[in-house]
């Protein structure tokens, strides 16, 4: 009777762990990128998988777990408000975008990547009361959208395999 719940818990843990591993790998290889917030955002692939395989609730769980734990482990709590703001906005945008039938995971993920940067920079501009900070977005949005689209391809390929498998029924 608890099998469904247990399965969801196991899936949440697995997806969270997966996204943390990618966060960790990314923190090991800091790319010499010129702007704060400019990065691959590999771990978002798992949030995307959670969204497509299990729905918005699971994606929120994975995103929150990932943000809290990766700040605790790698980024530090100074980064937490920005990660949280970017992460939640990204989640909201991807959840809404997924409902549009004209978007594939690639477009959904691109919008999510851009939204992540948007959330972070908006909060940064608000906290420092420096509207000029929004100029970061001229570079961060295209890059965030691009890396997001790449991760979308990755997640779409994984989804194809997972949804074809009997052992991992999609819910």
């Amino acid at each position, binding site marked *: 009777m608890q099998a469904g719940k247990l399965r969801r818990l196991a899936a949440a843990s697995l997806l969270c762990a997966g996204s943390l591993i990618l966060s960790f790998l990314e923190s090991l290889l*800091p790319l010499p990128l010129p702007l*704060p917030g400019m990065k691959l955002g590999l771990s978002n692939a798992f949030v995307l998988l959670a969204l497509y395989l299990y729905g918005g609730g699971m994606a929120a769980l994975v995103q929150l777990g990932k943000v809290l734990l990766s700040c605790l482990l790698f980024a530090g709590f100074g*980064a937490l408000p920005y990660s949280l703001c970017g992460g939640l906005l990204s989640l909201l945008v991807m959840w809404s975008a997924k409902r*549009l039938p004209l978007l594939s995971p*690639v477009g959904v993920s691109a919008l999510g990547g*851009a939204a992540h940067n948007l959330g972070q920079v908006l909060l940064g501009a608000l*906290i420092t009361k420096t509207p000029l900070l929004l100029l*970061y977005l001229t570079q961060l949005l295209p890059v*965030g959208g691009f890396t997001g*689209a790449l991760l979308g391809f990755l997640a779409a390929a994984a989804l194809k395999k997972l949804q074809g498998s009997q052992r991992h029924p999609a819910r």
Partner: protein
Amino acid sequence: MKKGDFLAFSVILLCALLPLFLLLGQGVGDEAVVRVNGQVVARLPLEKDGEYPIKTEYGYNLLRVEGGRAFLAQADCPGLDCLREGSVSAPGRVLSCLPHHLSVAVEGARLPFDALTE
């Protein structure tokens, strides 16, 4: 990939252009305006070389002005994104260390007349 994906890309690129309007009001940049938590804590003229340590409850950064350009030279945050930002001199350019609630914006605060009347 579906058609809508390209629409999504276009929306993202269009949104990326919007902040450029912020540059319209910018005059001649001659000061690095340092803000912590939104409060202006220092205005450093770019023509004068110097160092400005910024120590707050959030952490430590060192701002350096050299040859008319401002850059963050040291920081004690884990990410060190601010050190990779390079240097700025043009009006409207910003540096930031967001974990420390710090921004450094090049602003043309003074009218050029100041220099002329001296």
